[in-house]
């Protein structure tokens, strides 16, 4: 199975902001945030259609989200995830003595994971914390 390495950026999108205010337990929030944006070139390299489930992982963790083409253009080699519990499964928690985790610029690996489920925000975090769901 193809696996590619990208540089992950995370941050706000207006859909993330609006659906968050609409309720983080709702489907709309998952739809807006459980995604990873890539360039069309990188989608091709990964051999994936848009809206396919992919597993994003690195030394900090792993999460399943949908692959989509970035609507705000990226450099090839960069990927973007809206801020939220999905992206925070793989961001670099190191603060290097500043207090600030490294939310932008984390190396990640991506591979197709068609059969893996995408959890909603509450279930995702409860599972990751070893709590009953």
């Amino acid at each position: 199975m193809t696996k590619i390495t990208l540089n992950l950026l995370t941050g706000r999108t207006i859909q993330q902001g609006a659906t968050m205010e609409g309720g983080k337990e709702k489907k709309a929030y998952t739809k807006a945030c459980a995604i990873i944006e890539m360039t069309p070139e990188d989608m091709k390299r990964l051999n994936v259609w848009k809206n396919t489930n992919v597993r994003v992982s690195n030394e900090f963790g792993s999460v399943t989200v949908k692959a989509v083409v970035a609507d705000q253009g990226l450099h090839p080699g960069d990927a973007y995830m809206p801020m939220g519990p999905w992206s925070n499964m793989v961001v670099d928690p190191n603060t290097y003595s500043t207090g600030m985790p490294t939310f932008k610029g984390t190396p990640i690996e991506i591979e197709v994971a068609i059969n893996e489920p995408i959890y909603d925000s509450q279930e995702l975090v409860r599972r990751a914390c070893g709590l009953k769901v």
Partner: protein
Amino acid sequence: MANIVSDVICTFCGTLCDDLEIELSDDGRKIKEVYHACAIGAEKFLHSQAEDRITRPRMQDDDGNWTEVSYEEAAKYTAKILCDAKKPLMYGWSSTSCEAQSVGHEIAEAVGGMVDNTATVCHGSSLIAVQDVGIPSCTLGEAMNRADRVVFWGCNPAHAHPRHMSRYSVYPRGFFTGKGSKSRKVVVVDPRKTDTASLADAHLQLEQGRDYELLSAFRVAFRGEKLPDFVAGIPKDQIYEAADLLKSGRFVIIYFGMGVTQSLGKNHNIDIAIGLTRDLNDYTKAAIMPMRGHYNVTGSGEVLGWQFGFPFCVDLSRGVARYNPGETSSNDLLIRDEVDAVFVLGSDPGAHFPISSVKKIAQLPSVAIDPHLTPTTAVCKLHVPVAFVGVEVGGCCYRMDNVPIESRKVVDPPEGMLTDQEFLTMVLGEVRKNKGV
């Protein structure tokens, strides 16, 4: 006649828009429509009306079953975990009023807590830089009336502060900027071609994480010195051109965001951005402003500042206020297992902290005070829903340019629900009882 409340403040982002109009039902109990707000602001007001809203505190057992408890029981539990802990973390504070923050700080002082706000994952790096090198800044009103050169560096207001450009930075007609957006040149520096970048006169699409180099290159270009052919992936001609554009302005305002504060380099990226602003003042007038996220994260820094002397990462566990980001910051404390209880108010670390920190919260005695259901409330032992500040209760908030704005109450909270200030006051009473003071 429609029942309209005007001049309502939007308590979502640091732009703190103060021109909303809200249409209420005839009996004044329900919000029917929100005018002038952006998509996020409107959703905030409308969601507060949701039928499935949680209106009473709840505790969860080990199997994840929730039981409703009274506010009195919730206050007792909260006071107990804070008093029992050696070093409780009291985090959040950015989505509430300054009045509630102040009561929270009294509790923190009594229990010897670690008080930190969302700047810790947002503009904390900027606060450190400001302490190191100072900051030449201004208000949004000055920027609107004067700035004819606008830089957005590592921020994307089109998505994060949707009305910032129309109210203050790009489109409004000001005293010296009478032609609105035609009086201004906009430069965007961002590794993505963001929706903000697509409106700009110049977009420097640098390689991610190389802001420090590009900022240095600007300082070189201002002085007319030589640059290598490319810096951070940007051809030198583009840098010289943008530098000239800024120098030729009458007033330059630089807005910056998470692109610089969260990339490697962190506070040093801001140091040099402030240095660049200082340099520009040799040629014209220039100011710089962080694009603060939560509507009252700035206020939390202010209140902590005037009460304890530091804007975030305040350690009260030794009886005096200490401050040392990297040590007394939430994520470092959690990662190093240094706190033994977690209290969260007006923030959602469950969604916005790295998962390694969230796992630690889930293992500790914990309480989340939040009107919403969030990943934080999902892992905390106690969830205390409270009224929405700026919708169901007023209170003082600080806009991103440090201007205080009094938010307004529009409707009553659901029957029997407390505000966060009322709940905190109950907790403070319990804490005093426990401590015998």
